[in-house]
């Protein structure tokens, strides 16, 4: 239900089939897991125990599939 709300906040999006948020929710889970795993590798690589936003930033920069996140992480200082 949350996901549907976010989708409909975008004015360009029209109607949404009922099953769609289910699909997106699953994809989001996978995506988040992916993002976490990859960022965690960086955290380990740096020998840190706490995952910080700069690890996340580096993760986004090294994976082209996360390109759409560049703007979001750009606010993070290096």
């Amino acid at each position: 239900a949350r996901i549907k709300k976010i989708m409909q906040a975008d004015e360009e999006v029209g109607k949404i089939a009922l099953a769609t948020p289910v699909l997106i929710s699953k994809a989001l889970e996978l995506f988040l897991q992916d993002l976490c795993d990859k960022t965690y590798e960086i955290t380990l690589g740096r020998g840190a125990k706490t995952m910080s936003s700069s690890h996340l930033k580096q993760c986004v920069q090294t994976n082209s599939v996360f390109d759409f996140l560049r703007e979001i992480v750009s606010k993070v200082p290096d």
Partner: protein
Amino acid sequence: MTMDAASRSKEDVSLPKATMTKIIKEMLPPEVRVARDAQDLLVDCCVEFINLISSESNEICNKEEKRTIAPEHVLKALEILGFGEYIEEVHAAYEQHRNETLDSPKAGGKWGKEAGSGMTEEEAIAAQQRMFAEARARMNSGGTQSS
């Protein structure tokens, strides 16, 4: 914190932080800690992901001259955006969900698969809409616990 229902700005649309924090923690090995700003960032990434898939699906939907975004559009969007490896699992989750909603106990197991989609699908859709409405209502009224 006052939540004015009338002024629904774009900023209000996000995922509930507490739930996200829990999910993120569960995804990582237990001994890892996550900095507060990193957590917020992850949540922002999620919202961005949803927006991305939505607009891409919407475009695909328009190109096919349909008015309702269908599951195939979402799957196609995932592929285009480079998340092709998710497609199999997403599709599996979708199938499972479909089976769960179509096998409505009310209509008796027989209807589900043999009679085709006629009546049961409508019932299922009605049930789903009720669930969504309930969930939305719960979200709107019950979110004031710790904030």
